């Protein structure tokens, strides 16, 4: 893990200049890391980068407004930073961005699915990520899962594995893939009727913990979300699917033209509800209509906060 070591060097160099460096450190088990806030050189030893470094470090940036922080970012994380900058929610001079070539992160759901015949991921006695595979020891037996099989979907279609902008970069830039919105295409093989049922069923598991919202680096409302407000009173607190789905639609619409597709909403969902799909649908619409992908340019205004007098791409209904 040469990149990880190089990153550590960069972090060490930056520590004196910033309040803290946000990256990843050991989690409660070896499969998935935790966000890690480094302030002292000895803390940098435990820094991790790799398939276990799932969390989006950009999430924490607005909390540190007024302080200088450095951030280790995957490509997707850097897009969140760019979008936050585009919306002037953070100040450029307050963040130092450390990029590296991201080879993709592991999807805990996929790991669980692959391990299912043997047990669940939490039963792993040992887990070691290699260059191309994850080696898990369970009940004394070693299982090898190729990384390609357990990589998060967002990584398989990631066009920007390197930070879209950075102040420091460790390692050689990696090549990206094309995003063809295959996830949506898969959903769209279903009939409209089935899609409706799909959401009805998926959302029924929602426990309204709002991890999806709170894990979203671009959710600006934070403590003032309409999910629980009474004025405006969009949602009831009842345990019904309609409120739950309406919340997801709300989150998605609030992110239309802003979502960078980091997928944290979906990863955070304890019930495994594919909530990213709705945001993806809007991203595809915005890309198609306005040629805009969020989080690539810290200077661009989100397309729904502007307009053109003549909208060439909008085909209005001819009555």
């Amino acid at each position, binding site marked *: 893990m040469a990149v990880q070591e190089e990153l550590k060097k960069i972090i060490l160099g930056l520590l004196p200049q910033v309040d803290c460096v946000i990256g990843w450190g050991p989690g409660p088990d070896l499969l998935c890391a935790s966000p890690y806030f480094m302030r002292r050189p000895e803390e940098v030893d435990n820094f991790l980068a790799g398939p276990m470094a799932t969390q989006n470090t950009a999430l924490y940036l607005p909390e540190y407004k007024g302080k200088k922080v450095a951030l280790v970012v995957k490509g997707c994380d850097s897009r969140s930073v760019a979008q936050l900058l585009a919306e002037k929610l953070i100040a450029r001079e307050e963040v130092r961005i450390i990029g590296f070539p991201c080879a993709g992160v592991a999807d805990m759901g996929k790991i669980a699915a692959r391990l299912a015949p043997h047990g669940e991921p939490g039963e792993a006695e040992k887990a070691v990520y290699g260059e191309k595979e994850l080696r898990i020891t369970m009940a004394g037996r070693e299982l090898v899962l190729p990384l390609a099989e357990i990589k998060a979907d967002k990584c398989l279609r990631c066009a920007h594995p390197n930070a879209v902008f950075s102040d420091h970069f460790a390692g050689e830039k990696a090549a990206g893939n094309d995003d063809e919105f295959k996830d949506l295409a898969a959903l769209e093989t279903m009939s409209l009727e089935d899609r409706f049922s799909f959401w009805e069923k998926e959302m029924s598991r929602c426990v309204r913990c709002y991890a999806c919202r709170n894990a979203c680096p671009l959710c600006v409302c934070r403590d*003032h979300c309409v999910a629980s407000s009474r004025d405006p009173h*969009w949602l009831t607190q009842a345990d019904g699917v309609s409120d739950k789905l309406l919340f997801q639609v709300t989150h998605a619409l609030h992110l239309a033209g802003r979502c960078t597709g980091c997928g944290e909403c979906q990863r955070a969902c304890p019930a495994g509800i594919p909530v990213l799909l709705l945001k993806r649908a809007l991203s595809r619409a915005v890309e198609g209509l306005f040629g805009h992908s969020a989080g690539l340019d810290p200077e661009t205004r989100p397309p729904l906060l502007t307009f053109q007098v003549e909208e060439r791409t909008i085909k209005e209904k001819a009555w």
Partner: protein
Amino acid sequence: MKIGVFICHCGSNIAATVDVKKVAETAGRMAEVVYATDAMYACSEPGQQAIEEAVKKYALSGVVVASCSPRMHEATFRRTVERAGLNRYMFEMANIREHVSWIGRDQGPNTVKAIELVRMAVEKLRLNRALIPRKLPATRRALVIGGGVAGIQASLDCAEAGLEVVLVEREPSIGGKMSKLDKTFPTVDCSSCILGPRMVDVAQHERITLYAYSEIESVSGYVGNFEVVIRKKAAYVDWDKCTGCGLCIEKCPSKKNFDRFNEGLGSAAAINIPFPQAIPKKAVIRAEDCRQFQGKKCGICAKFCPTGAINHEQQDELVTIQVGAIVAATGYDLADWTVYGEYGAGRYADVITSLQYERMLSASGPFGGHIKRPSNGEEPKSVVFIQCVASRDPSIGRPYCSGFCCMYTAKQAIMTRDHIPDSQSYVFYMDIRSPGKGYDEFTRRAQEEYGAQYVRGRVSQVYPRGNKLVVRGADTLLGSQVEVEADLVVLAVGGEGSREAAGLAEKLRISYDSFGFFLEGHPKLKPVETNTAGVFLAGSCQGLKDIPFSVSQGSAAAAKTLALLSRDMLESDPQTAQVDIKRCIGCGKCIQVCPFQAIREADLRGQSKAEVLEAVCQGCGLCNATCPQGAIQLSHFTDNQVLAEVEALLCP
């Protein structure tokens, strides 16, 4: 809350297809409704009386009237409930006439629909809050932008009524298009004879401050309290010293410049006074024409100026003024007629515009009032007028009728015969539009008394033959091709909004259409108002007009301005956006989208928050729909109020 509901029969207008009694009976069981009844004519005197009495008798705190469109009678009933002691916003209307009884024939569905519309109104009313208009002090001064005839009229009317007026004109002289005209239809009186004295009045009026050769730099503030920055363009002549003697013009060595006032017919010196009656009569140096500015040694004007007014170092000057109201009277520009390749597209010297023709006819014009062919200076004997150039022509994106061309063409045909008695005029026209007082008679005189030959049809081509021009077109009445040999072709070019209108509209935060015309508040009922409070329109900037109409509008805009500023304090419409400071996180999205710059960032104990300038807010609610957490809410149309209406429909 205690709600009273009144269902109007509107005679049989509603009652014929809606079971009014049943609607009232059902309404009586709706949330917080304690009194529901029907009324023959709710808007009538007894109808309103009944509402007032019920409010008092049942201690109602809100009223719903189900009758016609709120666009019709909302204001009426608001006054009614106000008389009864309620706040006027504790009132809602259900439109069961235009939206129910008049568009559906069956009583069954109509009644159900009426009941639901009433329920929606009740549910919304439950969330209404008393709104109190804010009182704002007003600056008793008006700004008039544009010194054409409409602007002059507006300025004089306001000033006469005692208001201070600031008149801003972008050209060196006021007078506008009218000052370029020779005569005016249908009376054929001399344009400068009637306009001139008005211009002088402007110059001499103690309450009018004129900024000529100036433009609007920026506008901020709101009704009653606008702050306007005016850019006084550098004339390179100290106007305080300039006496308008004209010596500099005479001595200026750079004389072959485009003469703007004369539409390029003659030529002008680099230092110039546009026309003898100019107000103010002050010289202006055009830097692009001036040798001194071209880096050549000159400065002759400075040498000769008897008062030492020339100042090549002069800079633009910014002046900030406070005004309470603004009248935009920026007029029009001729549409681009050079798009017509078939008319020579500006290549033939003897194809001119009607406005150039006016300058030709004018005794103070470049030709001294003699009609001459620009190509050779000969007197034309055959003059062809082509109407509807850049008017009524969707193919070039000008679908509208410019309105005044038929009349001025008739006038020009008459003047042609007047000037050259042996001349023959031909007018190619599509339709003759002459609906003003004495107008149609005038066009007939042109034909009958002055022998102008009117040919109904479009001209397909103008091309030179020898030193003449051949005008080929169709005579649609005869159904044949016609060809006329002309010495001079005059194009009756239509108008469009001033080219600078769009930029000004954005500064004034008013709407404009794709032709550059400003949008009035209501096509019928608010013809001189705009949707920005305190900004009024006069003259052709709103749509093309002839002189009498422009003058009327100037007076109308003045009347509106005077009515507005007759009070020391103004009331602002309280249906504005409100920020819930506790919920605002200062993301600034509302600020980005507000079309009126009515929201600004404010600091609240170190936190950034949105702040609405209530007097600027026009109540569109765009911010409300933009704010993700709904921290900014449009009063009277809050999310909860709209949701209550939706809910009322989905949970019947």
